[in-house]
């Protein structure tokens, strides 16, 4: 048991220690969603409308930045020595995902401090579901980042996917315009986009009016998406390499 928990725990702790020592990273992750939000929200004179989207974007950036490190870490870095240690792969993957998700969550919580600017008031007790929702979304997006990064040869490829897949996914998730007003195929896209449910989950817990899909549906889809991704991470990492991946 020790041989399973210790590696995961040490990786999780490593992420947190690194994060604490490189505090400027927080600025990088929180700053751009904050600027987007302030620009779009102020321009349309509706900061509250875009708040959930900006918060999820913060979590997404954080999750992406910490999973992107896998690519370089594997070729040159700490991951190398992990790969030739007897620690079980699933334990290593769990530790990495726990660590990255915790960071994404913390940065989401930091972004929560700007809620009053949006006129969003959260009662102390309501903070619990909000924090839990951010945690769930953090795990989901970290899982997504991991699945993409694990097979990537270069960080350039990851940037390509980020611009072609992740950012557009975020755009049609209800972060910028609600599903109710979307037209034609974009509306279908929004329906099948798992991120749509993350955004509406945030909207529901923050008490934003008229968010679609419904609260329970949003919760279930986000959780299911997260579970599928985590399972995928475990399966991918357990596969043995016969090529020069290391």
């Amino acid at each position, binding site marked *: 048991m*020790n*041989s399973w928990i*210790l*590696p995961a*725990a*040490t*990786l999780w702790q*490593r992420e947190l*220690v*690194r994060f604490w*020592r*490189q505090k400027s990273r927080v600025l990088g992750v929180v700053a751009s969603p904050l600027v987007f939000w302030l620009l779009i929200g102020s321009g349309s004179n509706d900061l509250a409308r875009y708040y959930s989207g900006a918060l999820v974007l913060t979590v997404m950036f954080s999750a992406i930045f910490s999973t992107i490190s896998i690519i370089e870490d594997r*070729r*040159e*870095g*700490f991951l*190398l*020595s*992990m*790969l*030739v*240690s*007897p*620690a079980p792969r699933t334990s290593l993957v769990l530790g990495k995902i726990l660590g990255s998700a915790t960071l994404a969550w913390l940065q989401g919580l930091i972004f929560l401090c700007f809620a009053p600017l949006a006129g969003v008031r959260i009662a102390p007790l309501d903070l619990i579901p909000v924090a839990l929702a951010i945690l769930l979304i953090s795990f989901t997006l970290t899982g997504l980042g991991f699945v993409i990064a694990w097979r990537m040869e270069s960080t350039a490829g990851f940037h390509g996917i980020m611009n072609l897949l992740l950012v557009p996914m975020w755009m049609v998730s209800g972060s910028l315009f609600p599903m109710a007003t979307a037209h034609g195929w974009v509306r279908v896209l929004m329906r099948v986009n798992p991120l749509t449910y993350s955004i509406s989950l945030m909207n529901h817990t923050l008490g934003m009016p008229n968010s679609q899909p419904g609260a329970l549906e949003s919760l279930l889809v986000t959780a299911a998406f997260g579970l599928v991704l985590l399972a995928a991470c475990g399966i991918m990492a357990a596969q*043995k*390499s*016969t*090529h*020069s*991946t*290391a």
Partner: protein
Amino acid sequence: MIQVENLTHRYGERTALRQVNFAVAKGEIFGLLGPNGGGKSTLFRILSTMMAPTEGRAVIGGCDVVRDRAAVRRQIGVVFQTQSLDKALTVEENLRAQGHLHALSGALLRERMEYSLAQLGLEDRRKDMVETLSGGLRRRVEIAKALLHRPPVLLMDEASTGLDPAARRDLTRHIERLRDQEGVTILLTTHVLEEADRCNRLVLLHRGEVVTEGTPQELRARIGGDVVVLDTDDAQTLAGAIEERFNLRPSQVDGQVRVEIANGHRFIAEVVEAFPGAIRSVGLHKPTLEDVFVRETGAQIE
């Protein structure tokens, strides 16, 4: 301790290793010497369980590197060519994380850390951030980290790359002490001749094949006497002329003519006398591993 049998590896069409065989005895420093691209890194990846070979097998401490991967991983410490330390952590934190990967904790882990730090002379650096350490010190931390679980076998890939000569000698000293005092078996890859010279035994790898094998002394002894190197404008003509006149077999490498000969000092006088104006400069040295490599492959290592 390590047996490599008929090991072949192909990356698609390209054959990186071809029928490689050798065995490493317990407690020796064994070197894989060869130019970059010679197959050392492929061999290293296979031995360190990162990659399965196309054909053949490798056994470390009685365990097959493919089938008993987990057992092999407990027996080897691996030092990579690239850095595997976390720069944002201290020396001690890096070691502790490594210990956890090997399921070491508590008093046992502390004891192992003390031992490793002491072995590599790093006691007073334990609180230092890896980022602030010199290249030589980082290498020592890498070795301390690789030895933490007290593996009987240490695998090192081009461990001295990027180190200045003083740091390189220092590293060699530490490795030799591990062999002498702890009985650790060490396999290292290198393209640095002075490092290869300190090995107990060597394999010369060229284009994925074992060219020759032996102790550094044995290998050098194959070249009788001295090596004379002649700098000239036209190596081909000069080599031909020497062959004809002195009945020798000179080789041409990189526009130079090399002659292996006993009593090289006498030959120099004769050859300069014989071809006035044809020779730009003359060098004489005792055989090195480079000469052995040139003789066996017609190519240079560096």
